[in-house]
C-alpha cells in the first residue's frame, strides 16, 4: 500500500486519515464501502416513509404476482414487482435488509462481548482458567457456527416451548448466532493479551495500584481491539448469511416478519412456477451486501494490521 507512512514521519496519522489515504489507492474496497453504506441507508431510511409491506392492511392481494415494471403486465407502482401477498418487493427488501442488518449487528456485538470477556480473562488470568476456556473453545470448533446456531436455536425452542412471540424469536436468533461465533474473538484477543500483559505499560499500571479489572479494561483492551474489529467486520457478513440461512430453513425469523432469509424462503415457493423475481431480488441483495462487507473487511485487515497481510 502506498499510504503507509515513511519511517521518517514522526507522528502516526490518525486512523481516519489512513483510511482516506488507503481509499485513494484501493478503488475496489472504496466501491464496496460505498455500496455497503448505500444499501444500509436504503434499509434504514425507506422503512421510515414506506408502509410496512408485512402489515396486511397496507397490501392488496389484487396486486399479487405483479412482475417487475419493465416486463409486460408490470406496473410503475411496483418497480421490482410484488410477491404472492401483493407486497411491494422494493419496500419489502428494505424492511428485510433492515431486520437482517439489526440481527447481524446485534449478534456480532454479542459474540464480541462474550468472546472478548472470555478472551481477556483467559489471556490475563492464565493458568487453569486459561486452559479451561481455551479447551471449551477447542471443542466448540469441532462444530461449524451454522450448525451450532441451529442447535442453540433448537434448545431454546425446547426450553421456551413453541408459543413464542416475534421478539423472542428474533432474540433467540441473535443469541444463537452471537454465541456460535465467540471462539474467534476469544482466541484473537487472548493471543494479543498474552503479548500485551508483559509490556512495560501494564507493569506501570500495576505499580500505580490499579485493579486487575481496571488494567484489563482501561489499558490492555484498547491495544488489542484493532484485529478484533477487523474480524467483527468480516463476521458481520457471515452473521447475515447465517441469519438468512436459518430463516430460509424456517428456524430463524418467523415468516410473518421480513428478513432476507424469510423473503428468499417465500420466493423459493414460486421459483418453479416462473415468478422468479420474488426470490431473485432478496438473493441479489444478500450477495451484494455480503460481498461488499467482505471486500471491505479484507481490506481493513490489511490497513489496520499489516502483520496479518496475506493470511486468510
Amino acid at each position, binding site marked *: 500500500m502506498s499510504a503507509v507512512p515513511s519511517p521518517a514521519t514522526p507522528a502516526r496519522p490518525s486512523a481516519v486519515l489512513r483510511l482516506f489515504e488507503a481509499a485513494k489507492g484501493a478503488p475496489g474496497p472504496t466501491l464496496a464501502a460505498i455500496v455497503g453504506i448505500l444499501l444500509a441507508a436504503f434499509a434504514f431510511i425507506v422503512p421510515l416513509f414506506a408502509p410496512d409491506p408485512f402489515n396486511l392492511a397496507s397490501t392488496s392481494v389484487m396486486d399479487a404476482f405483479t412482475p417487475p415494471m419493465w416486463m409486460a403486465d408490470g406496473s410503475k407502482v411496483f418497480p421490482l414487482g410484488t410477491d404472492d401477498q401483493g407486497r411491494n418487493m422494493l419496500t419489502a427488501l428494505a424492511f428485510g435488509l433492515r431486520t437482517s442488518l439489526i440481527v447481524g449487528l446485534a449478534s456480532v456485538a454479542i459474540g464480541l462481548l462474550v468472546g472478548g470477556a472470555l478472551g481477556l480473562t483467559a489471556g490475563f488470568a492464565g493458568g487453569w482458567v486459561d486452559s479451561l476456556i481455551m479447551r471449551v473453545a477447542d*471443542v466448540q470448533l*469441532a*462444530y*461449524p457456527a*451454522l*450448525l451450532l446456531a*441451529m*442447535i442453540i*436455536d*433448537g*434448545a431454546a*425452542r*425446547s*426450553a421456551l*416451548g*413453541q408459543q413464542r412471540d416475534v421478539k423472542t424469536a428474533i432474540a433467540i436468533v441473535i443469541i444463537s448466532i452471537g454465541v456460535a461465533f465467540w471462539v474467534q474473538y476469544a482466541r484473537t484477543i487472548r493471543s494479543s493479551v498474552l503479548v500485551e500483559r508483559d509490556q512495560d505499560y501494564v507493569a506501570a499500571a500495576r505499580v500505580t495500584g490499579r485493579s486487575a479489572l481496571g488494567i484489563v479494561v482501561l489499558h490492555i483492551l484498547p491495544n488489542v481491539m484493532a484485529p478484533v474489529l477487523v474480524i467483527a467486520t468480516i463476521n458481520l457478513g457471515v452473521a447475515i*448469511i447465517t441469519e*438468512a*440461512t436459518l430463516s*430460509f*430453513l*424456517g*428456524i430463524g425469523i418467523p415468516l410473518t416478519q421480513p428478513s432476507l432469509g424469510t423473503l*428468499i424462503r417465500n420466493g*423459493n415457493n414460486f*421459483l*418453479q412456477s*416462473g415468478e*422468479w423475481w420474488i*426470490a431473485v431480488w432478496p*438473493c441479489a441483495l*444478500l*450477495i451484494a451486501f*455480503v*460481498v461488499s462487507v*467482505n471486500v471491505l473487511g479484507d481490506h481493513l485487515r490489511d490497513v489496520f494490521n499489516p502483520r496479518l497481510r496475506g493470511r486468510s
Partner: protein
Amino acid sequence: MLAYASGRLVQTVLVLVIISFIGFLLVSNLGDPLASLLTADSTAADRAAMIKALHLDEPITTRFLSFFGGLLQGDFGISYRSHEPVAKLIAERLPATVELALASLFITLLVAVPAGVHCGVHPRSALAKAIMFGSIAGVTLPNFVVGIALIGIFSVKLGWLPSFGRGQVVDLGFWRTGLLTASGLKAIILPAIALSTFQVALVIRLIRTQLMEVGLSDHVRFARARGLTDNRIWYVYALRNTLLPVVTMLGLQLGNIIAFSVVTENVFAWPGLGSLFLQSIQAADMPVISIYLILIGAMFMVINLFVELSYPLIDPRVLRRKA
C-alpha cells in the same frame, strides 16, 4: 509415534465423553419427555412405567451412565416427535446423506484437482484468473442461494435435472441406494454440486498456493532436468506434496459439509439426516437433536484422528521430523 497416537486417542475419547455429557444435559433438562411420549388417555400406571423405563427416578449420575452405556450399544433413546427409536430414524436416513456426501467429495476432487493444478502451474493465464474469480464466488455465496440458482437454471429453465428427492432407490437389505438407477443418479447431481461448491473453491485455492511453492523446490527442478513430461511432473511429483494440507483441510471441513448438508437437503428435499435434524429442531425434538450433536462430534473427532494418524503414510517426512 505410538506414544503420540495413544495420547491423541485418550484426548479424543475424553472429548467425546464431554460432548456426550453435554448432549445428555440437553435431553435431561430441556423438554418434557413424559408429556411428549405419553398419550392423552394414559393412566397413572403408564406414567409410572414410563418414568421407570426412562430412568427418570434415578440420580443424575446413574442416568448419565445409563445414557452413555446406551450410546455405546446403539440405544439412542426415543424421539419425542415420532415416538420411534432415534437409532432407527437415523439408520433410515443415513444412506441418503452418506451417498450425497460421497458424491460431493467425488465432484470436489474431480473438479478441484485439475483446476487447482492449472492455477498453480499457470497462475497468470486467463483461465486461471477466471477460476480464481469463480472460487471467490464459491466461498462467498450462501449455500442455499447456490442450490436455488442450480434449481432455477437446470430444473426450471432447462428442465434437465430433477429439483427434489432421491429418484428411484434400490433396497439392498442393509442399505437403500439411489446410485443404481438412472433417476437416482440424475437426482443426486444438483444437490452434490451445491454441497461441493464451498469445498471445490477451498481445495482449488489450497492446491494452487501449495503448487506455486512446490514448483520452486529441488525435486521438481530435478524432475524437469531429467526430461519428464510436464503432466508427470505436476500430477505425480508435485501434487503429492500438496496432499497433506488438502487432506487435513478436507478433514477439518467435515463439520461444514455436515452443516451445509442440512441446508442442501432442505433445498432439494433430500430425505437424509440433515432433513431429519431440521424437522427435529422445528419440533423441538430434543433426543434427536442431542444424538445428532454427539454423532457429529464423534465423526469429526474420529475422522480427524485418522487424518492425523495417516500423515506418515502420506508424507514419510512427518515421522522423521518428529523423531
